[in-house]
């Protein structure tokens, strides 16, 4: 016997075993166990389970999906969502990881729809993935609710029929930040920005500058800094900001970059020169606590979390979420919850109208231009041909409560949806460049 043939045999055995398990899995996934009385609605959930975006966005989103779907199936969500399931049909979920190349995401999207027979997909945090799967959803006629991605390009570049996004797009975050800044600093003469050099950072800064130009034309841009994504070390940027001495510094940082920047700029006393505007600051607020300088302006991509107004639905959502996961829900959790509730509202409405299980087209008809209550705000599917949601938004000022050793948000200002979102017939860029015509702020 030639040495090495044993290895070959082992390999063959491994390969055969893999092959057998592939076939086994394929058949297992093809057959469901005993069919329940009502055929379930199969829902694919796609969110980051691994990688840099999993901690701050992906996992809070998945947790919200887990608890919400459980509660929806049990019919335990408060009114007006107290009926079980989607139009009475229980939800059966399959959760997938969003990490990996765009090619992987498109392939897995096709697998979910064509192989696994999902009736709807709720997911996607990365704007790149949202842009890539949207045309595929159209091609496969698969009802898809994008839950967290921010780019306004989705519905502005082309008209989509099968794709919805209940979560408002990112233009609102920058416009509301600008309105809050102008309200608090009417005499502002200059401002700077430090944003990650990738689509989200570039778009956030561009929209913020455009909104500032419309609101306070006399204020000048001092420094525009674009460190690379996940740089983690901002010594040079902080030096530049310290010499610029702008009263306001805009930043759309998130995750590790946000926390590193807070720590590093705190050590060098940037807060004495400038007030920071963190448009996604809420996601780091509880972890960073007293390290965030008092007076920093904090946003949450909507009026979520601590910025949310009191409501029965919100109180309930916070309670069940905290009881299960031990931490309060972050804004991606709210984005997931409101996307699922939007789908439920549309599905229930279509089911009542049809008198039986609605078809995808009937759910789409019900979803278009729908108004429904999310845990933190009323969502109106008002733009993007009725496929893109808008909602009110709030910004506030950070204050660390030393007595109770917990972070607080004070001076909360709420902006109505029409004040910070483009009208249905305009793209966000055109609206901002025209000086935000038709914005209704009172």
């Amino acid at each position, binding site marked *: 016997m030639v040495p090495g043939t044993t290895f070959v045999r082992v390999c063959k055995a491994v390969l055969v075993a893999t092959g057998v398990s*592939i076939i086994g899995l394929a058949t297992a996934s093809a057959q469901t166990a005993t069919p329940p009385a009502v055929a379930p609605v199969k829902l694919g959930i796609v969110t980051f389970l691994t990688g840099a975006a999993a901690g701050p966005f992906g996992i809070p989103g998945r947790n919200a999906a887990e608890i919400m779907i459980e509660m929806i199936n049990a019919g335990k969500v408060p009114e007006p969502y107290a009926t079980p399931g989607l139009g009475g049909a229980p939800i059966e979920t399959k959760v997938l990881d969003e990490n990996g190349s765009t090619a992987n995401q498109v392939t897995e999207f096709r697998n979910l729809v064509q192989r696994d027979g999902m009736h709807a997909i709720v997911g996607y945090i990365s704007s790149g993935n949202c842009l890539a799967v949207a045309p595929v959803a159209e091609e496969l006629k698969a009802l898809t609710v994008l839950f967290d991605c921010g780019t306004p390009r989705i519905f502005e570049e082309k008209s989509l029929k099968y794709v919805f996004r209940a979560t408002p797009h990112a233009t609102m975050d920058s416009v509301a930040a600008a309105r809050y800044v102008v309200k608090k600093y009417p005499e502002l003469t200059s401002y700077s920005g430090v944003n990650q050099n990738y689509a989200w950072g570039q778009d956030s800064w561009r929209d913020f500058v455009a909104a500032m130009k419309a609101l306070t034309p006399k204020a000048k841009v001092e420094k525009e800094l674009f460190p690379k994504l996940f740089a983690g070390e901002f010594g040079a940027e902080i030096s530049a900001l310290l010499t610029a001495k702008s009263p306001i510094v805009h930043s759309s940082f998130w995750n590790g970059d946000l926390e590193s920047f807070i720590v590093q700029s705190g050590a060098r006393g940037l807060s004495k020169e400038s007030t920071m505007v963190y448009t996604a600051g809420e996601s780091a607020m509880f972890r960073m606590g007293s390290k965030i300088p008092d007076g920093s302006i904090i946003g949450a991509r909507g009026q979520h979390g601590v910025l949310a107004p009191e409501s029965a639905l919100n109180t309930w959502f916070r309670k069940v979420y905290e009881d299960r996961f031990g931490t309060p829900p972050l804004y991606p959790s709210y984005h997931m919850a409101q996307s699922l509730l939007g789908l439920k509202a549309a599905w229930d409405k279509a089911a009542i109208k049809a008198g039986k299980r609605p078809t995808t087209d009937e759910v789409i008809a019900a979803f278009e231009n729908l108004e429904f209550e999310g845990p933190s705000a009323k969502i109106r599917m008002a733009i993007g041909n009725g496929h893109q949601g808008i909602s009110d938004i709030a910004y506030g000022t950070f204050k660390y409560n030393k007595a109770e050793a917990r972070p607080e948000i004070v001076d909360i200002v709420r902006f109505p949806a029409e004040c910070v979102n483009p009208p249905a017939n305009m793209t966000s860029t055109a609206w901002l460049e025209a000086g935000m015509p038709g914005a209704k702020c009172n």
Partner: protein
Amino acid sequence: MSVRHTLLGALVFAGLAACVPLLPLWLISLITIAMSSGLVVSGLIILWRAGLVPFGQALFFATGAYTVALAGLWLKISDAVVLVILAIVAAALVAAFAGLLLARYREIFFAMLSLALSMILYGLLVKSEALGSTDGINVAQATFFGMKPRGAAYTIAVFWLSLVLVFLAWLSVTAYLGSVAGQMAGAIRDNEIRVEYLGISVTRLIHLKLTIAAALAGAGGALAALSISHVDPQMAYWTTSGGFVFVTILAGAVSVPAAFIGALIFEVIRSIAVAVLPGGWQMILGTVLLVTILFVPNGLGSLIMRKRIAGQGGSK
């Protein structure tokens, strides 16, 4: 390669093309994506045999993909065949230029330099807001000889295109590996100085190998862009290059068909791993890589070849 082999191969591909009605659509698009990385890997085999492992092959992959996207966007070219040819030419041109520098380096220096070049492209794409930065841009669906298949027909058309490309790549890579220039690879890996003494310029030979490998990577990129209808800078990122190297290790450099079979196996394993272990699918991929390196160090291709050699009584 004998005529018999070519005909046999043509038959296999015709058979695969005819299989379309039997295959579910998700599997067809999965195979298409696998073939796009198989094309890149078939080029990597050429370099691998000369002892070169580029960690930046994504440079040419992304060049091919963005060529397709931008030719559609700016030049309004929609014919799939023209787009693929453009992508191949663009990637080969980039390699012909980059090769002036790359072809002088070996081993880790070659690997790192190629990685650096691909990261430069990544950096440029990320900074270009007009091209959507990290979000990338959609690729318009292509036409095929004036026909405009849409929906399921488009998926099938791209699948057939991938079969044609794979067939052509298989023929040409096998022919090249059998040629004198191709056979030199082993000699270059073993002793470069001796090859130079034979009167052959190793630098020029490696430059040529780089260009051929880049052309194949460009074709792979074009196919990926047409298949997923979206391009983004991630295609030029080093993890993409790492993925190609992974498949090359899995497939081995012994046999050309193994590149495509390896790519398909990788894609199937990845897809199953994602479904089975959503929070830790990378662990399954890592285990597969480890097992391959431990037990089949020359890749899956070596299993096919060993069988063939055994069948011929070791006469080859």
